[in-house]
């Protein structure tokens, strides 16, 4: 009943592997289809959501703020989807924000560079060296995106349990390897790991709710207890804490809310949902 998160250097390749894994194991596939749902729920455009997942960082803080908001919405929806077991998730950046949950298998699939180069050459009619350059740039952009948004380098293999390169291993074999891996007992969900997942989901929901008014808030959750860190000038402190409490309390599953408002102005908000260290 584990969760498999597939990440890849190419969206198409990752999708192909994730879908066939889901089919092969009889798991549910969670992909970018949920973006439509997200768009409905938060009243934003689906295209912007996709853009937030694909686009590199920009120099303008404003646009990166908008992107972070979109990402917060995507996280919320994704994490609640992942509470269902037996899922394969791909294309939603989940490998960057579902950390520390033992029944999640995180797999990185590396596409065959030659194949992609050929594809580029065929589709866009560019030269081989140009195609290589395009791929290199894409890779650098992905790295920058993940560093910028989640402060993690998604090309670093140590963030994954398994990295499989498709340059020689074909996709069927890759799927079989994944299947074998999830059958190991340590990927079985346990109460503790399920709790971890739920905490992540809850904190991400609180974060999404708060986003509109308090984009800088940092949220942690631990079994119904939600701790929010934010910052403001002293005289606003009380008012702000109350407003936050009122908003978060309405979320089902939240039992207790605590707001820490620091006296300085620029806290480092984190987009990644987290569990409260207890």
């Amino acid at each position, binding site marked *: 009943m584990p969760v498999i998160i597939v990440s890849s250097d190419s969206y198409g390749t990752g999708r192909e592997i994730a879908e066939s894994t889901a089919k092969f194991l009889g798991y549910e596939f969670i992909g970018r289809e949920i973006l439509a749902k997200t768009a409905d729920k938060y009243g934003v455009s689906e295209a912007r959501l996709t853009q937030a997942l694909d686009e590199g960082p920009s120099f303008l803080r404003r646009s990166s703020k908008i992107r972070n908001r979109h990402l917060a919405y995507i996280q919320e929806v994704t994490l609640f989807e992942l509470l269902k077991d037996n899922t394969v998730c791909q294309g939603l950046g989940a490998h960057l924000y579902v950390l520390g949950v033992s029944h999640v298998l995180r797999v990185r699939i590396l596409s065959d560079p030659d194949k992609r180069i050929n594809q580029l050459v065929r589709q866009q009619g560019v030269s081989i060296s140009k195609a290589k350059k395009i791929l290199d740039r894409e890779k650098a952009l992905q790295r920058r995106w993940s560093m910028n948004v989640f402060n993690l380098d998604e090309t*670093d293999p*140590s963030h994954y349990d*398994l990295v*499989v*390169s498709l340059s020689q291993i074909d996709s069927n074999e890759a799927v079989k*390897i994944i299947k074998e891996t999830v059958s190991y007992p340590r990927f079985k969900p346990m109460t503790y790991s399920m709790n971890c997942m739920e905490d992540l989901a809850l904190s991400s929901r609180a974060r999404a709710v708060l986003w509109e008014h308090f984009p800088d808030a940092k949220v942690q959750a631990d079994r119904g207890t939600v701790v929010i860190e934010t910052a403001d000038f002293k005289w606003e402190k009380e008012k702000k804490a109350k407003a936050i409490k009122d908003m978060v309390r309405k979320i089902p599953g939240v039992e207790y809310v605590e707001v820490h408002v620091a006296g300085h102005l620029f806290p480092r908000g984190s987009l990644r949902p987290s569990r409260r260290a207890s």
Partner: protein
Amino acid sequence: MAIITVSRGSYSKGKEVAEKVAERLGYQCLSRDVILEASGLYHIPEIKLVKAIHDAPSVLERIRGGKRGYIAYYKSALAGLVQKDNIVYHGLAGHLLLKGVPHVIKVRIIADLEDRVRNEMRQEGISEQAARSMILKDDQERRKWTMSLYGADPWDSSLYDLVIHIQRFTVSNAVDFVCRTAGMDQFRTTRESQQKMDDLALASRVKAALIGLNADVDVISEYGNVLVFAGTDDRLARKIRGKIGSLISDIDGINNIEVHAGAPSE
């Protein structure tokens, strides 16, 4: 029916995995043997060789290219040893030195830093701080080494077929993965892939034989047709042409050898 290279950081259980894989598949397991072979073949002291292939080149060496010679010797010895197939190699830079041979499975085993520190403390009986700094230094050295010689980062996962994060698995899980990969059709040694391996071995032998000329040349081979690329220096090409005959006289399997200017096209 394959060659498996296991790349690993120190104390990341990679050695254990490699040995177990070899045992299970009945392959020969190689590591230090390559150094012995190289020092025997080319009459160089073992210690110098170990230093050259382990430490990152110093600034001076980078200019003189002194290290390149040792690496050529090492590569030649390694290629010669793995040529006979059914090998697990867990020494240095196997994934880089044996690049381009289809039946070479390139595996990397990674572990969390904390675990490696703990392992080292236990095995060496040293303090945590000492263990940590040694591991970090070793990694750094490794990285500098591959960067300076191959322009590639050893951490770059695209250099490998399979990267296994040992933390989440047991050693025997990892052994399962590797053995199962070794059983795939793609990694079966075919006549063509063995030919590529033979060509790689031949090219490395020729390159090692030319080290005495103190020239940075590229050597490639296809079906025994060896091409030596001498770069843009015409004088160097002429020098090589003049001396190559006697240097390669004891190498078998060369069908044709030519010295060209320039560099091999990709």
